[in-house]
Every structure is written in C-alpha cells, then in structure tokens.
C-alpha cells in the first residue's frame, strides 16, 4: 500500500467531478481527500487534486482509469514525478477559557496559525501546511477545547519549473 497525490487537469464542464467521483466509488478506490477549482483565467480547465491510497497496481489502475475519461487532459502522479509540495488549509474552532485558552493561543503561535476570529470563549484559527502538520495541531487542540474543524483537502504542485501541461 502507498499513498498517492494525483493531479488531474479536466475540462471545466458540468458533471466532470461526478465522473471522477463515480469512477472512485464504482471501482472501490479510496479517496482520502479531494479538491477541485478552476485554474485557468477563462475558467475552461479545472484542477482536481486527489489523495488516494492503494497497492501499486491499484494506483496505476486509478491513473489509467482517470486518463480514460473524455474530459480529462492530464493525469499526474505527483508522488512519483519527483519532489512536490502539498498543502492544506484548515479552519479550527477552539472553545474554552482560562489556562486552556491561553495554551491554545500559545500553541497556535508556535504552529503559525492565525487567529481569524475571537470571542471571549472561542478562537477560530486558520492554519496552512502539510496534512500531517494540520493533524498534529488538531491533536494538540483536542484537550484544549477543539470544537469544530473545516479542512480544504490537499492542493499540490510539483517543485521546480516542470508543469502539468
């Protein structure tokens, strides 16, 4: 088993995300996270980033099956194409008071999380980073009043000058 971060460049047309998700559910593949948004100025192309896991054979199948979809331009296995960057954003609500509240704020500073909302009994932190950094921060917040999390899923891109197109 391995984890794979796959970037898929698709025609930005209705139903294209359903095709991708239907492919994963229909064939029993895992989706650990999925993000999608238009990436071209004319809105013609969208980029889907999928974090998935499976045996080498399954991941090769996933790539081949994605490549077979008519509106798919390009499928790139970032985890196999050399070094890449993967980032995720989370909005994290921590509710509490007293020492726990102080501690949450101190830890947020250490993780470079921004406070984007505060009340006398709560903070909303914004944290960006690799998924494991987000996981670590959430683990620390759990005993300190972690109340709610919203995560974007992973956006990823290759290092250096090579591009998906």
């Amino acid at each position, binding site marked *: 088993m391995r984890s794979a971060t796959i970037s898929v460049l*698709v*025609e930005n047309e209705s*139903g294209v995300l*359903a095709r991708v998700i239907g492919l994963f559910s229909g064939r029993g593949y895992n989706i650990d996270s999925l993000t999608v948004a238009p990436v071209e100025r004319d809105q013609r192309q969208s980029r889907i980033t999928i974090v998935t896991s499976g045996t080498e*054979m399954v991941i*090769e199948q996933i790539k*081949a099956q994605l490549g*077979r979809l008519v*509106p798919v331009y390009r499928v790139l296995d970032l985890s196999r194409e050399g070094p890449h960057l993967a980032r995720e954003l989370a909005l994290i609500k921590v509710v509490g008071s007293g020492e726990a509240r102080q501690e949450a704020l101190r830890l947020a500073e250490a993780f470079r999380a921004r406070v984007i909302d505060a009340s006398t009994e709560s903070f909303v932190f914004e944290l960006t980073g690799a998924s494991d950094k987000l996981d670590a921060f959430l683990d620390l917040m759990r005993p300190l009043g972690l109340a709610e999390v919203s995560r974007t899923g992973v956006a990823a891109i290759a290092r250096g000058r090579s591009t998906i197109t």
Partner: protein
Amino acid sequence: MGLFVPALNGMAEMDGSMMASETMASGAETLLRALVAQGVDVIFGYPGGAVLPIYDALFQQDAIRHVLVRHEQAAVHAAEGYARSTGRVGVVLVTSGPGATNAVTGLVDALMDSIPLVCLTGQVPTHLIGNDAFQEADTTGITRQATKHNYLVKQSADLARVVHEAFHVARTGRPGPVLVDLPKDILINPAPYAEPSAAPHASYRPRTTPDPARIAQAVALLKRSERPIVYTGGGVINAGPEAAKLLLEFVRLTGFPCTSTLMGLGAYPASDPQFLGMLGMHGTYEANMVMHDTDVMLNMGARFDDRVTGRLNAFSPGSKKIHADIDPSSINKSVTVDCAIIGDAAETLRALITAWKQDTTPQNRDALAKWWQQIDFWRSKNSLRYTQSRDAGSVIKPQYAIEQLYKATRGRETFVTTEVGQHQMWAAQYFRFDKPNHWLTSGGLGTMGYGLPAAMGVQVAHPDALVIDIAGEASILMNIQEMGTLAQYRLPVKIFILNNQYMGMVRQWQELLHGNRYSESYSAALPDFVKLAESFHAVGLRAETVDDLDRVIAEMLAVDRPVIADICVDQKENVYPMIPSGAAHNEMLLGPEHKAESGGYTGNSVTDEGMVLI
C-alpha cells in the same frame, strides 16, 4: 420546421452564412443533418413525448430509416447487432424518463463489450430539468457509469458539435456507447448546423500507434519462446477485418497456436489447424492447457477476463506475458504483464509482422514442433466429445443440434447471435466461425434477451444474409416482444431455441454446486412456441426427437420469413469442459464422456473461495 428538410440530401449547398435566424433549422432537423453527415442510414428507436420533434423531422425526410422496436432495451441491442456486424456506429433514439431507463441495460452491455453506439434520449425542456417533470429522469446521471461518455445539450449552439463529437468518441479508441440527452426545447428551437471539426479533440486523444520499442521487446520474447500462444479477443474484431487478416498472417508466419475469447471468435478462422478453439471457463482442454503451460503469451485485444483466467494466482504461472490493448486501463488490471503495447490491434499486428521479419534471431523450430506434439496430445482428448443416440425417438443432445445447424448453414453468409446461458456456450463451442463480425453475443454483461434484438439489427444491416439467434427457452422470453418488429419489417430472422425447460446454466450450477436444489430454475408454464410464432405472423416449427431435427433445420432455413424452431433437447445436459470457479486451467473438468480419464465431476472440487465467485 420542415423548411430545411428538402435540402437534407444536398446539404453541402447550405452553409451557415446563408441561414438567417428566421430560416434556421430546428434542433431536430439540425440533429438529423448531423446524423446524415456521420453516415447514419438507420436508427432503432421508440417515440415518446420528449422526442416528438425528432420523429416529426424523421417523417419529413428519407435519408435515414427508422426501425420501430417494441421495447427500448431491444433498440439498443439491435443497434449493437447493427454495429458489430458492420463495423459502423449503431444509433438508438428513445424518449425521456422510462425510454432512457429502459435503454440502460443495453448501454452497459455495449460498454462491457466495447460496441460503438450513439444513443439519443429525449429530455424534458431545459427550464423543467430538476423539477420532477412528467417522464423526467436524470438520464446523464443514471448513465454516467453506463456509457463511455455522455452529454446533456443545454445550448442550441452546442447541438451539432456535440452530436459529431459523440460519434467520434463512440468509434475511436476503445469503442463504446455514447449518450446524448436532448431537452425538448433544444429540439424545437432553431439550432445552427456545424460540420464535424477537423481539429483533434481538446482532451480525448486515444493512442492507436504502438511504441516501436515495445514491439521489438515483444518480438524478442516471441522469437525465443519454446511454448508460445496467441490469445486473441474482441479487440481484434473491433479493429476491423484488416486486423483479422493480419492476425492470420502473423499466426501463419510464426507457426504459433492461437486461441480466442468468446468475444474474439471469428477473428481467426476456426477451421484452421492452428486454432485451438475458445479458452476459458468452457473453453477446450487444449486451449486451457496451453494457456497454463505456455512460456510466452501474446494477448491481442483481450482483457484477462475472470471467465478466461480462472484463479488468478494459478493463471499461466510460468509465462512471460505480452499484452496489446488499445485501452491503457486494461494493462495490469488483473494480470501483471511483462510487455505492454498500447495501440490499435491492426496497427500492432502490422508492426509485429514487420518486426518479426526484420529480427534476425532464428526461431526455435524444434521446441515449437515439440510444443505442437504436446498440443496434439491434449487435442486427442477431444474434450467437446458427446454421444448422440440415433435410435428413433432419441432425445436431441443440444450439442448435436448446434452441429447439425452449423453443417446445414455452411456455404451461406451466416450471422449467429445468442442469448445467455448454456446454449450460448454450446454455440461458441460447436458453431465454427471463420470470419470476423459474424458472431454476436453478450460477453461481458451476459444479458439474457440480447440475441433476438441483436439478430434484428444484423438482419436490417444485411437483408440477404442468414441470421440465426441461437436461444434458450428462458432467455428468448426476455425480449420476445420483438417478434412484432420482425413481422413489421419482414426480417427473416431464425430463432433456434434449445429448449431444455430450464434456465440451463443456473440449473447446471445448482446441480454442481448447490446439491441439486433446483431453486426457481425450472421454466414452468412455457408458451407453445409454435403457436407463439404463428400469432406473431412467423413460422413455428418443433423438433421433439432426433428424427425431426434435420427436417426442422432444413425447413427453417428454406423459409424466407421469421421462424421460431423449438428444439426440445436433453434437460440434463451440462456444458463441458468446465473450469470451476476458483480453479486453475489445469484443474479443468471434463464431461461424463471422459469420466474414466478424469474421475468425473464432484462438487467438492469447488473451493469455498470459489463458491463466492460467479
């Protein structure tokens, strides 16, 4: 509407600039114009509210013929029959809602067997979509996984482009069904026509030319092989008759044995001595033993289907595997291969032939001769052997019925379709196909009810040919309403029912795997097929014993009308050889004729693991 129609046959004169918006054709007319430009001459369909504008436009032209089926599923199978027997794209036209949902089985069938289709479905007007309107269904949602691709046309300006693109996607790469959902307002409102684009598709660009390095690698493996096999599939048929010619040339050139999947039958001539018959679950002993013991396997356009491989971890354990396929997702899907070639089967075979001739490595002829000796030994088992008593009043063996039918049709241009079950396997085993595109069966999906409508489609495309649906008495009832279509269009399809009064394959599995408990597999309350034929304006015949068989076949073939021949066959006969679920090729079971050699069959040879398999 209608203004445009007289120009249908001389469309070249009409260019977009001439069409002021008040004279612009309706969406329905533009649709037909695009179909004509795509070479469509026949549509299989069934009308309904949402597609009435198309039917109105069809009424006012004569470039495209419409064949009215009796159920939308049959329209799709008929289009499959048309497509498979001609190599062209089959076209289906159905209405919204139930019209579309009834078509789904046919679409999945075409998807599994890689048959190029364009299915046009009506849809409620765009402003009602999502409103649960009358006869509304989320057709593109429902068929997303049932098609190679599908479209919902929301803008009149897109209509012509989408239709052209649908045909392109259906016929290129690994062929398949493409659906175009057409809201009623798009069909009524003016829609501009556009010629097919010469520019390549922005994102869809299937690879057809094989990588020369892989071809060289494959030839190097094959030249050094001692126990080679060429294993061919439906991809060779889909690549066109040229691919079948090249396959024959390649197999002759190399001296290799050749076997075929169910879908590939006819690509290599069955009567040729280098052909080992079909492989897989009900393949011949020699074909499966060769697959097990081979050292270099060349898979041309087949997909290592579970019916072919048997237990995966025991599949051809010692071989180097070369897999040529047009679909990259077929590679390493279930069987890991040593050399993958992505490309069209004809192009790949041409490249292999050239490379084989250029490669100066001598072939190991001694090893190949020894291999053929081994194959001849396996062949001498005669694994398709059965015994037909000729005594008066004897029960007809289904195998014998197929053999006699085959003999009686030799020398005629014959197309055979089947339903699904025992009769399908016997047809594959005992009817011999020497040409591609003459054998039509539902392989991947295994759709009972496929054969009659498919035969209809074949007969529409080949009015003078002999078209036979080899059927079972259970399967035939699944689309029996199409007898009406045969009558209406005077399609002289011959329906040859092997009637054993059981869903035979279900009964066989219940006998072998479920302790003879024949749960719901008996065909109770069957109709009188002779009277049924007559009530549908066809000819009904029956053979009750072996004495009747040849006469009934002769009568059936002599009549220039649709015929149902009800052939009463042995109820207990099973299909052999058989690789039980979860078993390996070399653990294949031979029939009762071979009891002395194989110890006969016991249900115990199926493992617990095998029991869960289908």
